[in-house]
């Protein structure tokens, strides 16, 4: 690129012409351009377990990655699409996990019934618990959601219910490693594309408006509390799905399901991947989770490296990877004479 007087100019690739919300697609080349990134993501996720056939350890990492990705999507959805900063990832995982354990061990539900029912039951309970704090804004809501997992841990320990500090053991496992992988991958894809569809509907627009300014939404005759409740229900359903899956994966539901990691790592992932698109959440997780596995060789020094890399991302690419890549994909740069 020649230096000299001038500035960089960004030009949209011509393909982004829209009419009435529908992409005007005229050639297969344009269709590939639009569908390409989505198909790439789907293909990578579906082929990953096959590619790692020789490395069973890494196949398990995929499972964990997908669970974190679910939590990150749920966080991203609430924070960037509805405006509620929810640090309750650990609560969703824990509640979903314990419900799955109860349904499977006590009520003898099969795996593929216990996961969805635990997700629904968990979402109802989480939503009811968060209901009183929905009128709180910003950091206050965040604090309350951060507190709930700690509360659950102490209550379960103190009253020695739900297996106390030993947890509930003896859950059914998945019929094999491939079903194990593909269950969570398909859940992740369904959640991702379902949620994106929802956000493109008018209800998604209303949620976005609640984030923007809720006074005008109220003045428009819409009950803000109801919209927020719906959003929290959706987000906690997604989180509880992850929790229920995790309990079956470990064949155990214990206090470590309420670990703070489940609240914090998704936020870091969304920060790295970039918020708002939901894709960014997955990109962030697929960097952070394998990274933390690679760094295991460094022992306790791991956390230092982890933090350094995280800080690097925040300082040098604060917009997140996904918005950066989207921009590179949809626009090209050229020098313009001033």
């Amino acid at each position, binding site marked *: 690129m020649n230096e000299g007087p001038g500035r960089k100019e960004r030009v949209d690739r011509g393909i982004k012409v829209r009419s009435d919300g529908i992409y005007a697609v005229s050639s297969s080349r344009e269709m590939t351009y639009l569908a390409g990134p989505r198909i790439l993501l789907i293909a990578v996720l579906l082929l990953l377990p096959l590619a790692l056939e020789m490395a069973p350890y890494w196949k398990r990492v995929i499972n964990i990655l997908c669970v974190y990705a679910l939590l990150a999507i749920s966080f991203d959805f609430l924070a960037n699409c509805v405006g509620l900063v929810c640090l309750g990832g650990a609560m969703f995982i824990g509640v979903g996990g314990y419900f799955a354990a109860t349904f499977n061990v006590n009520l003898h539900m099969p795996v593929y019934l216990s996961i969805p029912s635990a997700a629904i039951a968990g979402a109802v309970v989480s939503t009811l618990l968060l209901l009183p704090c929905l009128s709180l804004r910003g950091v206050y809501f965040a604090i309350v959601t951060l507190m709930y997992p700690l509360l659950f841990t102490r209550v379960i320990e103190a009253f020695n219910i739900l297996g106390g500090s030993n947890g509930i053991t003896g859950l059914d496992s998945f019929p094999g490693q491939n079903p194990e992988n593909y269950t969570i991958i398909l859940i992740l894809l369904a959640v991702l594309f379902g949620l994106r569809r929802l956000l493109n509907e008018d209800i998604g627009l209303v949620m976005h*408006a609640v984030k923007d300014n809720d006074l005008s939404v*109220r003045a428009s005759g819409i009950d803000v509390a109801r919209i927020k409740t719906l959003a929290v229900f959706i987000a906690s359903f997604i989180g509880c799905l992850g929790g229920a899956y995790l309990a079956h994966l470990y064949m155990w539901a214990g206090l470590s399901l309420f670990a703070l990691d489940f609240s914090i790592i998704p936020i870091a992932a969304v920060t790295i991947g970039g918020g708002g698109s939901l894709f960014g959440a997955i990109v962030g997780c697929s960097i952070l989770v394998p990274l933390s596995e690679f760094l295991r060789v460094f022992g306790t020094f791991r956390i230092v490296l982890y933090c350094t890399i995280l800080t690097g991302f925040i300082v040098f690419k604060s917009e997140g990877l996904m918005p950066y890549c989207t921009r590179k994909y949809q626009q090209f740069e050229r020098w313009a004479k001033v």
Partner: protein
Amino acid sequence: MSILSVEGLGKTFGGLKALSSVSFSVRQGEIYGVIGPNGSGKTTLINCITGFIRPDEGKVSFRQAEITRWPAHKIARAGIARTFQLMRPFYSLPAYKNLVIPLWSPRARKEGGWRGGGKHGDRDTVAVDILEEIGFERDSRVPYKMASTLPTGYLKRLELARCLALRPEVIFCDEVFSGLSPSEVASMLPLIEKLKMEGITLIMVEHRLRELFKVADRVMALQFGEKIAEGHYKEVIEDRRVKESFLGSEKV
């Protein structure tokens, strides 16, 4: 026939009496002006009636039904819309998408937005129609621009458009003329007249008295949260207390 009546409305913030037993009633289809110096309780009055603040005492009735202490969204659904003095559009949305929010509300879905449009989906088209009606040039790119990039004149119109999308019976206009240039106000006045012709009742809180008096049928003056005069604007501005509150008393 009075469409909205307010009896003895009162509100205290700490030790400050923002409103003390204000009563008035608005007839169907009229333009009712509310004037008063800064801090006289005009915006508090709107907030209390439209449910954004709970009044301490008093009664608000709309079409003979009591609506005091209803939540704001329920009052909006009943057909009482309002604009905000400091414009509150959805800045991160394009102008026409701003109207999809009220068009999505239960009221508009049941009865349609302004003139009954958008009842069965296709809210984007209805939104652009409303914007055109209110002075956004349809063929320009203005209706599709981000609200954050629009100048004040358009934002004021957008506030009104958001009310219209609800298909309201009553609109509270909180200083829609403030911050506009004389020519912008001049182009806004026919719009206000048009809304009146459509049968919408308007209650206008204003500082721009000359423009207000061109359209208002009746005017009420507030001072320190109390109603001090009401009637045709010529009577109201001749009132001794109104003159004092705006210009100061003769004795120093």
